[in-house]
């Protein structure tokens, strides 16, 4: 049979596309490789966050955040969706100016945030280092346990008629046809490539999507109170730099009382083993902001690869040179946040509709520009 849509990659982006497209009545086939779970989705932090590095990023993340809020009530409790908000923490007075800028920027699109001074920051997060000048509180941000959310999206797609083919590593994509290494041929009108770093199976994307390694550390259950996802404002600098290894303070409270501590960014490594020196830098940075974590016991360290693009924006939309082959990849560290928005844009493009936000900034036509 010929499917309406074949989706390559069953991470959270592919799962969201499958859910969206099958709910629109299209026949969908999801194809994924031999690993049990999409590696980038599994390794991520599950932070749903509005980011304003660029207007296009701002538009996509805020649109997606709204979609998550609507979706939240349908999620099972095991998905641990929690609207805890984000605190962007300033280290000094100079960064307080950035807090101010962000406040007005968010206000422009009607997103309410709150500027915390030293005292209100202290009462909001008593375990942070004393003497930090303040923070921006973004109350609309959330955290989610993304493996459960992903499986939920896939299961719902399946219930709506989607077929899911695992253990099928894709060897070739041409217009209307996906071929696997096992020799299976899947015909489809539209083909969506949402395979994270593995999206490079399309030579056009291989040029542009590069793995960016990250580390995360999780602790045992602690009694240390953390009320928000805490991120240093310097994170933006870390996330912007492309050539140097960088670390930034980022801590997420889990419902279990565990602390999930990040983050690191490294280019040019395809080695999945944990780099102890980077981990040491991450932990030092974390303790500078959050000294109460010193005695927490780290139980696990893992790494993952974010699919990064040169301009920090994902590729969403038809790939030039193909007939109805679409990219939905290159989300870097924002794949969880923007999965639902990405799926909406892909569905709109396939069905020839207008979208809630302009699609043009994410178009893969900018590759090679």
């Amino acid at each position, binding site marked *: 049979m010929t499917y309406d849509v074949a989706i390559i990659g069953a991470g959270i982006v592919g799962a969201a596309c499958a859910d969206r497209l099958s709910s629109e009545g299209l026949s969908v086939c999801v194809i994924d490789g031999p690993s*049990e779970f999409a590696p980038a989705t599994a390794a991520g932090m599950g932070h749903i966050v509005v980011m304003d590095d660029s207007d296009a990023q701002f538009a996509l993340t805020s649109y997606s955040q709204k979609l998550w809020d609507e979706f939240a009530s349908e999620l099972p409790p095991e998905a641990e969706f929690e609207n805890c908000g984000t605190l962007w923490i300033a280290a000094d007075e100079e960064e307080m100016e950035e807090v101010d800028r962000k406040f007005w920027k968010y206000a422009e699109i009607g997103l309410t945030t709150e500027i915390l001074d030293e005292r209100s920051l202290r009462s909001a997060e008593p375990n942070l280092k004393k003497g930090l000048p303040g923070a921006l509180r973004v109350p609309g941000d959330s955290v989610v346990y993304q493996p459960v959310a992903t499986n939920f999206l896939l299961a719902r797609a399946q219930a709506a008629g989607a077929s899911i083919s695992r253990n099928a590593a894709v060897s070739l994509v041409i217009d209307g046809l996906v071929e696997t290494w096992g020799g299976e041929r899947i015909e489809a009108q539209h083909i969506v490539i949402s395979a994270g770093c593995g999206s490079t199976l399309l030579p056009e994307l291989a040029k542009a999507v590069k793995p960016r390694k990250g580390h995360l550390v999780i602790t045992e259950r602690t009694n240390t109170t953390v009320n928000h996802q805490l991120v240093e404002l310097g994170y933006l600098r870390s996330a912007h730099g492309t050539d140097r290894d960088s670390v930034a303070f980022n801590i997420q409270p889990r419902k279990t009382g565990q602390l999930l501590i990040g983050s690191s960014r490294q280019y040019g490594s395809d080695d999945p083993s944990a780099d102890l020196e980077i981990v040491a830098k991450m932990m030092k940075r974390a303790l500078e902001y959050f000294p109460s974590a010193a*005695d927490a016991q780290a139980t*696990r360290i893992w790494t993952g690869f974010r699919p990064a693009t040169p301009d920090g924006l994902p590729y969403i939309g038809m790939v030039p040179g193909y007939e109805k082959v679409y990219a939905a990849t290159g989300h870097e560290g924002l794949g969880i946040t923007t999965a639902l928005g990405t799926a909406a844009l892909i569905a709109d493009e396939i069905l020839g509709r207008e979208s809630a936000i302009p699609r043009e900034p994410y178009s893969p036509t900018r590759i090679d520009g």
Partner: protein
Amino acid sequence: MYDLASNRSQTAWRSKPVAKKKTEILVIGGGPAGLAAAEAASSHGKQVTVIDENPAFGGQIWRAEKSELSEKAKNLVEALEKNGVEMIASCTCVASLPDKRILALSNGKTFPIRYDKVIIATGAREQFVPFPGWTLPGVFGAGGLQALVKGGYDISGKRIVVAGTGPLLLAVAAYLKKKGGNVILIAERTDLLSLIGFGLSALRVPGKWREALELRKEIRGISYMTSSSVLWADGNGKLSRVTITNDNEESEIECDLLAIGWHLVPNLEVPTLFGCDLLACAVNADEYMRTSVEDVLSAGEINFVGGLELSLIEGKIAGHSAAENLEAARGLLAKRSRLLTFASSMLNTFLTDPEELRKAVTNDTIVCRCEDVPYGRVKDLKGFNEAKLETRLGMGQCQGRVCGSACEVLFGWEANSVRPPLVPLKISELANFETENK
């Protein structure tokens, strides 16, 4: 589709080469196999260091009474120290570092140890098979209860049921009885005919039947049932009775303690950190105890759970082999092969059908006790990793050491997903790594 993360192991730890401590042959694990390996390696003039995570050497089988070293272990340890072998107790390997180093943890502090060759002899642990009520206080692993009693836990007058399978049950029952426990029943899963068959084969191995006779004497007076197993345990906040089946008849027995002994399973965390090839849930080593990784050897129960004598001989072979004296190792190969044959026949006798074990489990039975994950939540999932991601099973304090082997039995999943650090490390200690190495 290519999959970056699963292509290579996540288990090695990267960092720049700096050494704090150095040895020619590092032995990880100071049980019988590790001590025998250290003895053999040092006999060739090699500089040897043995680390063990317990406060005393000797492993599980030579576990000391009230932290006194057992006689056999004591003699061996003394001889080793006289030979200049460095013995570091309470020291755990938490990660494998590049450039032939491990990251060791002792007294809350980490430090690297550099080696030329490493012999892994981390032994085996008890397998737990979940059944309703197994998490109640009062329910123990048979070896675990024995270890507690050795550590001073008073069982005098306590009514004890010993259940499960294998010769370990008899040894544990005898020990508990000697220590004043009121052992009221030994319930052996295996049927009588298989046991007789095994008994006959044991006669072919000198010494084994004498051991068995000794044991019989010691457990005289305790009722012994075959084809019998525990269906569930219950009690209000702690164990007060077990329901057992014997040839399909159920009966309730009031008791204070239940000691359950299934098989032992190899402690594969360390060899997995090193990236050693595994085969059938054990390290895949050649007859000279060399693993698939250069300069990494393995000895004892991580290769095959076959008891004390096999561990000792494998330790010796590994020690000679690590000291590059294959001639000395070769003389021991025939004896090892005989012991291995016997151990395999024992394993076959006491092999338990997973279908049988699953029968006892209900949807509410906890599989992962660290994260409170019941059987019903994982039974339809596809594998250990999916279960971990979906339910956090195996991601708690014990890092899947208990539920991993339980899932292997219940679902046939390969539950090997080791990540550094092997034991929890303080965040402040992780942060210090950099400075310590400069």
